């Protein structure tokens, strides 16, 4: 027993000393718990154990360096001349044994041990292992200058201290690992930010691969994209796998990437050349181990990535898999973005190509009517190069003073809605060009960003139209003059036969009168043919104008009835006129209304013998499709009537119900066609009701106030 060391003293174990030791141990625990990192933990262990109440004066904490097997000094107290990072090599020193078996070792007299590395040179040494998660990571070395200085109590105290320190170290290491992971995550995010900035697909794929290789610390790798159409993987980037694999195609299930593409699960292949699933396309690669993962967006396959180690010492572990799993979805999104971007670029190129090759001049304007772009057809039409035109006000560029305001109106309107018109525009060389103009607003995401104008050169069209109009006008002129030329001799035939008829009647030669009347009738028939053909040709040519005037309906009816009287009497028919009390006045083309009525009455008389003809005229209101008041004029007869089929063709030119009727009843077959056209011109309609043997009713409906036709009412 010696009393010149604290350790020896504790063996006396007085009551007050126990309490002090417990207090010291508590302080030690508190200090260890408060330590922020491993270094601080080790310092607080040695410092705390040096406490007066505990009396350990020579202490050190060593950690095992797994690479070399050395013990490296982390913290120490009491030892003279010890360097801060003192390394005790494998096979040296007493403390190695505790490290090897994880148990406490006591050496009562160090001078007897050959492995003892001199620090105090004499005395005793206690080595306590530091165990974290079942592994011995280091050793706590406690020495005394006295031999045989430690007992059971010291073993307990120091074991407890070592365990506390080990727990703290384990916690600290976890913290560090978490921090590392956080840092790694940040690095990954940075990588992704870089990837997202790349939009060109080939460059994205190269970047994805480069990042993956550096993030995982592997030899090389490759990236493939999945093609929907072929259902194959296409290798698009390859780096350091021992061959240039770009362009290789893999079916689903083929090789490492094909396998992960099918299973949607990552895969580690520790020894690639022994792997049964390898593809023949990779027979010559120099890789040792492979880790592959599918690139997925949700459940949709975008591609696959593979990383390789060519060093047989390096194998893929859970940590690599974890990193790849973090990386793969980001890479998939980057690839998909690039794909979408590429698709959008193609779309854009497509539309640009359309614009470039359009034969129609196309110009786009911003909201201030300045030219934003124009196509080659625009350049050709107006003689301005695109560079000259862009930024200029469109209407200042291609109009003259005369057409400026009209053009500007189009432009303004086109910002709101589609506009269409015909106009003249000025070329750069000052010549004018006739154009058809189309303008539409350009709306992007609901915002009106400008407008688009299309110009179509219609010089040729206009010339063709003018020629057609001239030809048409010549035709009308010809018809008019021809009918005039025909009419003059006809007038003589009709007039003289009528006059002669009057004279021979006065002279009492009645038998001559019949022949003269036949000449007269034939002449009148020919005249009506000429008149109808002329009317119809005018209608067809669009040259029949409306002359609207207000007239008294009753007076018009009286006039028509007077004129029709001889026709009614001819076949011994009776004409009954029914009309509303207040027919009043109407606004229409009087001549045409009269002509239509006479047509209908003439037809009724022609096809009815000894029957009744009713002219019924009413003023009515609000009948579809008319707005306001209308005049309905209907002519009914008790004549031969018509079948459905006959009625179908009734209003066509030169169609009588049957060819045979023409010879029996005469007529041109044009009357009803003209009647229908006249009705349409005045915004009215004509309808027929009939059955064979039951007579026929024609009804003409006209607005009480006919609106002027767009062609105007000007005289010819």
């Amino acid at each position, binding site marked *: 027993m010696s009393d010149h060391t604290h350790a020896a003293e504790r063996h006396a174990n007085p009551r007050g000393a126990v309490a002090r030791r417990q207090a010291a141990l508590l302080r030690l625990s508190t200090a260890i718990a408060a330590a922020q990192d491993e270094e601080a933990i080790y310092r607080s262990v040695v410092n705390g154990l040096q406490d007066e109440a505990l009396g350990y004066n020579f202490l050190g904490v060593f950690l095992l360096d797994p690479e070399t097997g050395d013990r490296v000094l982390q913290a120490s107290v009491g030892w003279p001349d010890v360097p801060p990072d003192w390394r005790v090599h494998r096979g040296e020193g007493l403390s190695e044994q505790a490290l090897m078996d994880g148990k406490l070792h006591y050496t009562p007299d160090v001078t007897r041990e050959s492995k003892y590395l001199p620090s105090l040179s004499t005395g005793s040494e206690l080595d306590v292992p530091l165990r974290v998660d079942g592994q011995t990571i280091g050793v706590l070395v406690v020495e005394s200058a006295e031999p045989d200085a430690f007992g059971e109590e010291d073993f307990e105290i120091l074991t407890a201290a070592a365990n506390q320190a080990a727990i703290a170290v384990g916690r600290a290491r976890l913290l560090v690992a978490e921090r590392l992971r956080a840092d790694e995550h940040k690095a990954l995010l940075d990588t992704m930010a870089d990837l997202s900035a790349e939009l060109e697909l080939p460059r994205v794929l190269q970047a994805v691969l480069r990042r993956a290789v550096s993030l995982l610390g592997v030899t090389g790798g490759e990236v493939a994209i999945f093609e929907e159409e072929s259902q194959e993987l296409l290798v698009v980037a390859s780096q350091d796998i021992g061959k240039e694999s770009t362009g290789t195609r893999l079916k689903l299930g083929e090789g490492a990437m094909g396998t992960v593409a099918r299973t949607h699960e990552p895969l580690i292949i520790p020894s690639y050349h022994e792997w049964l699933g390898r593809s023949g396309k990779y027979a010559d690669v120099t890789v040792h181990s492979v880790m592959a993962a599918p690139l997925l967006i949700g459940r949709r396959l975008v591609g696959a990535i593979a990383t390789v180690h060519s060093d047989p010492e390096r194998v893929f572990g859970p940590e690599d898999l974890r990193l790849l799993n973090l990386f793969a979805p980001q890479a998939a999104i980057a690839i998909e973005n690039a794909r979408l971007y590429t698709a959008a670029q193609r779309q854009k190129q497509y539309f640009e190509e359309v614009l470039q090759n359009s034969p129609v001049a196309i110009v786009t304007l911003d909201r201030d009517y300045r030219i934003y772009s124009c196509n080659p057809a625009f350049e050709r039409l107006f003689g301005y190069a695109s560079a000259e035109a862009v930024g200029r006000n469109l209407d200042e560029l291609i109009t003259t003073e005369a057409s400026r305001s009209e053009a500007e109106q189009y432009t303004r309107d086109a910002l709101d809605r589609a506009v269409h018109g015909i106009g003249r525009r000025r070329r750069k060389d000052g010549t004018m060009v006739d154009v058809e103009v189309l303008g539409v607003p350009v709306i992007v995401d609901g915002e009106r960003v400008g407008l688009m104008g299309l110009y179509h050169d219609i010089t040729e069209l206009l010339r063709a139209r003018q020629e057609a109009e001239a030809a048409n006008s010549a035709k009308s002129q010809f018809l008019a003059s021809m009918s005039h030329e025909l009419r003059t001799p006809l007038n003589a035939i009709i007039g*003289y036969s009528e*006059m002669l008829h009057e004279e021979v009647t006065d002279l009492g030669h009645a038998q001559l009168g019949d022949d003269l009347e036949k000449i007269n009738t034939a002449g009148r028939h020919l005249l009506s043919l000429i008149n109808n053909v002329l009317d119809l040709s005018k209608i067809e040519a669009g040259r029949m104008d409306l002359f609207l005037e207000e007239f008294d309906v009753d007076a018009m009816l009286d006039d028509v009835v007077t004129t029709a009287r001889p026709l009614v009497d001819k076949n011994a028919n009776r004409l009954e006129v029914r009309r509303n009390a207040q027919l009043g006045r109407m606004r229409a083309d009087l001549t045409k209304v009269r002509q239509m009525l006479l047509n209908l009455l003439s037809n009724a008389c022609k096809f009815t013998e000894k029957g009744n003809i009713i002219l019924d005229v009413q003023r009515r209101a609000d009948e579809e499709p008319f707005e306001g008041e209308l005049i309905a004029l209907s002519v009914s007869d008790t004549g031969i009537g018509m079948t459905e089929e006959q009625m179908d063709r009734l209003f066509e030119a030169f169609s009588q119900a049957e060819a045979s009727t023409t010879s029996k009843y005469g007529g041109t077959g044009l009357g009803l066609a003209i009647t229908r056209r006249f009705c349409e011109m005045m915004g009215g309609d004509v309808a027929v009701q009939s059955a064979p043997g039951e007579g026929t009713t024609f009804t003409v409906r006209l607005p009480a106030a006919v609106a002027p036709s767009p062609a105007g009412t000007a005289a010819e």
Partner: protein
Amino acid sequence: MPKILLVEDNEMNRDMLSRRLERKGFEVAMAFDGRQGVEMAKSDGYDLILMDMSLPEIDGWEATRQLRAEPKTQAVPIIALTAHAMAGDRERALEAGCDDYDTKPIELPRLLAKMESLLGKTE
């Protein structure tokens, strides 16, 4: 016996109409063109003028306007005679100052009715 001036350039029409009107008891004077018609109307007094519209020298519309501008002839009834071929003739005739119009070929009863109606008004 009403005195009628017939202005008509076509010989056959003129011959026919004048003879038929004379048979009905009218005294008929004849002019061959618009200018002659205006001169005759100014120098002699007529109860009614039948005016063809398509006339040489000056046409029927112009002749009518001139007669309407002249105090002596402004109240003389004028009936325009127009060809059916010329749509709008009637409107233009009434506009120029004609009192009525009739189409050729002449239907004598219809023309007589119009003439009698106008002659009745002036008497």
